[in-house]
């Protein structure tokens, strides 16, 4: 009978462990190429501002004079355009999503060794 089809599917799952994950206690593993958040190796950066020009969401701000590179994590759409545009290959895409924030802040990386590396 056609009623048995869905009954078989549903009762079979009653005997298995659930298909859902108990987030936030169990987090999902992402894949190596997942587009998560942008990371920069600030030592290699020459502040050419190509990443700032290519960013479609205008999330990156580069200050040539002060030698800082800032990113607005909430504007970034993880499209990978800046990583592909960087001629020094100092930008890379990490495979975890950026965490939730309580206040809207911009993350700045400075090349000046006297100043702290991250705000």
């Amino acid at each position, binding site marked *: 009978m*056609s*009623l048995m*089809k*869905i009954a078989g*599917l*549903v009762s079979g*799952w009653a005997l298995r462990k659930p*298909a859902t994950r108990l987030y936030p206690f169990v987090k999902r593993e*992402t*894949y190596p*190429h*997942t*587009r998560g958040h942008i990371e920069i190796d600030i030592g290699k950066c020459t502040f050419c501002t190509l990443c700032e020009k*290519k960013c*479609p*969401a205008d999330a990156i701000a580069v200050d040539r004079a002060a030698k800082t590179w800032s990113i607005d994590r909430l504007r970034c*759409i*993880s*499209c*990978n*355009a800046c990583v*592909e545009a960087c001629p020094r290959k100092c930008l890379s*895409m990490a495979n975890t999503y950026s965490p939730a924030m309580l206040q809207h802040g911009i993350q700045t990386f400075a090349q000046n060794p006297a100043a702290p590396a991250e705000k």
Partner: protein
Amino acid sequence: MSTATETKPKRTIIPFGPQHPVLPEPIHLDLVLEDEKVVEVIPSIGFIHRGLEKLVEKKDFQEMTYVAERICGICSCIHGHSYCEAIENVMNVQVPERAKYLRVFWDELSRIHSHILWAGLFADSFGFESLFMHSWRIREKILDIVEETTGGRVIFGYCKIGGTRRDIANGRLKSIVTELKAIEKECHSITDVFEKDYSVKKRTKGIGMLSKDDAVKLGAVGPMVRASGIASDARKLGYAAYGNLTWELITESGCDCHARLMVRCREIYQAFDLAYQAADKMPDGPVEIKVTGNPTGEFAARLEQPRGEVIYYVKGNGTKNLVRFRVRTPTFANIPPLLKALEGCELPDVPVIVLTIDPCISCAER
């Protein structure tokens, strides 16, 4: 019909939407009812209008790829592909063969996930929640394959002007095909229920009739028109690698909600078959070609999204900003057939009929 003593039944207007549990995105329909039977529908849209067509003034044509992909979350893959096809035709760019087959592969995966998503929502619209949950459980496996190969679960982001941004190694492609075959076997467990279950048939057969003539006159596209017996599919134009693959159009003659359900269920298996063919015939070679210069000229690219035929019209004048970027999505074209299919139905059938056009309102309003 009416004599001096007969009175016409009183009309009530009930608003459907913009917030409704069954709608994935907000649309507003004013239903004019005569005692639980719908006689007229007055639509109004604009809740998700973001003015994306005007963004061409600020973003250059390379950045518009990212905007085009983000017009919609469910059909994001083919939006990006359509934009790239339109610009490549304007600029006369010959995409490498491997990129064409990769695009077909990812497009078909996107069609599978979109149809399974719709099947789950459709089951939810007549209250069959366990079928909804199982459909979406199977869909997660497709999204895992997509995330591993492209980097994004929802926004695939694989297409760029001149080819694709990522490649799949041949060895991995073979193991993905094996995984897809296992998923296809699991899909039978839910499509069998849709096809044969007594309660599904009771809620969908004979509901939302759209005759063959009406489907043509009102400009229906996609599974709406194929379920009314008309064989029309934009993939027959032969874009990307579709000209080299063998496949048949799927049509049904029922003209009702059950026929549209069956068209989409059978298209899931056809999409699996097309993905296997594309993986099998994929040639070796580069996946992108360098593109320089600015677009001059105009072209209207027509592709087949899961919901129907989408048109991307671009016009450039030699500068890096386009003059016009117009998207006509299948849901927008399916609004007049929806108004016709809703006439004469009962109030509880309204969510079922609204869902059978597969409404993707964020596409329709851009």
